[in-house]
């Protein structure tokens, strides 16, 4: 059994953190770029573009193009926000190396790690730089 790590201790408790549900997904563009090459700028851009509802953007206090840090109990990765017509409270990003950083290794005995529906903490990078 894999020991789950506790959430990283937030050193600055006043930092605005918004809890959302992250659902990694697939897109046609991502599929095309997997075959063109995963080192390309386009693949990197696709796999780091986070789709967020406008109310959640407001709660985070960020605008399109802002960098945010997404944390799970397993790891963290940086993404760029983009407003999209997704349901409020849910955020979406195409699968890729950044989502691997957030995925836990425990498969609950099924052989497949939980690949969608993660509860994540989202923190604007501008707050981290302060």
């Amino acid at each position, binding site marked *: 059994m894999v020991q789950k790590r506790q959430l990283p201790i937030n050193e600055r408790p006043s930092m605005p953190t918004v809890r959302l549900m992250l659902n990694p997904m697939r*897109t046609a563009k991502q599929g095309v770029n997997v075959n063109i090459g*995963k080192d390309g700028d386009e693949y990197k851009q696709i796999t780091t573009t986070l789709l967020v509802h406008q109310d959640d953007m407001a709660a985070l206090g960020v605008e399109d193009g802002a960098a945010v840090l997404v944390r799970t109990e397993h790891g963290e990765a940086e993404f760029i926000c983009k407003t999209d017509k*997704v349901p409020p409270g*849910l955020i979406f990003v195409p699968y890729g190396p950044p989502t691997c950083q957030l995925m836990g*290794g425990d498969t609950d*005995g099924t*052989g497949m790690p939980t690949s969608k529906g993660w509860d994540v903490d989202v923190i604007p990078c501008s707050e981290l730089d302060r």
Partner: protein
Amino acid sequence: MGGKVTCTLGEVKNRADFIVYWGGNPAECHPRHFTKYTLMQKSKFLPRGRKDRTVVLVDIRETKSAKAADHFLQVRPGKDFELLTILRALIKDQKVSEEQVAETGLSLEVLKDLIEKMKAAKFGVMFFGMGLSMTRGKHMNAAALLTLAAEMNAFTKFVAMPMRGHGNVTGADVIMRWQTGYPFGISLNRGYPRYNPGEFSTVDVLVRGDTDCAFIIGADPGATMPKPAIDHLAKVPTIVLDPHVTHTSRLSRVHITTAPAGIAAPGTGYRMDEVPMPLKPALQSPYPSDEEVVRRIRETIALRPDWMTNQPQMIEAQI
């Protein structure tokens, strides 16, 4: 729960007048599915094509596929199992409360209308994707959907089929099933196949650190698996066979470039309905095929039996 009532995509094309996509986004992930099999094709029993078919999409968000569907049901995340179980109850006219239905994000009226349409269909098919099988509940969600499809056969013809991923993943499952009796998560270290997902499945073996070597053919776990599994691949000698230099190649000790299957190497690919399709290469490649590399490695090892003798768990059947 168990088993799968299914058919081929040819039958879907010719007969399916009621199509459900559950937790999948074929408009993005399987762009030819609509045009070749489920929506646009005019066929023997559906001469008017799209006009003869009803399409339902069940998902947690309105994807591009919703535009192609007649009905879109937005289920609350993580409530697929509950919704499927409610549908199983409703088809048998069992009592379900409004509150139970409300938890799934839908209404009893919508579900009753759906069931009416399902029962009125001549040939129904349910396609399910990763939105169902990779969220909490995983195989139990898929089992609930397969059971619903099986139980619908008390009223009309109904089948189910998973929307498989890229490449030849169906082929890998089919061949392992044929050779060992199991589709994945198999250990051969006792000289006979043993099956136990969670123990012998790749992610678990890597995360626990059970393996001291990894041989990866045509996959990129370095860009798809959880970080603890990737970390272990970087620790042990990893050998990669791939047409591209991938994230896994970078953390491996050896990368062997191979010809892309179906483009520059022949072989057999399995469609998502498990129908084998011969692959004819259209181009020539300077690189060998995966099959040739594996065969040459095997032949080289066979010439050096002394490489295998001192390993306590090695037995003759493995060599």
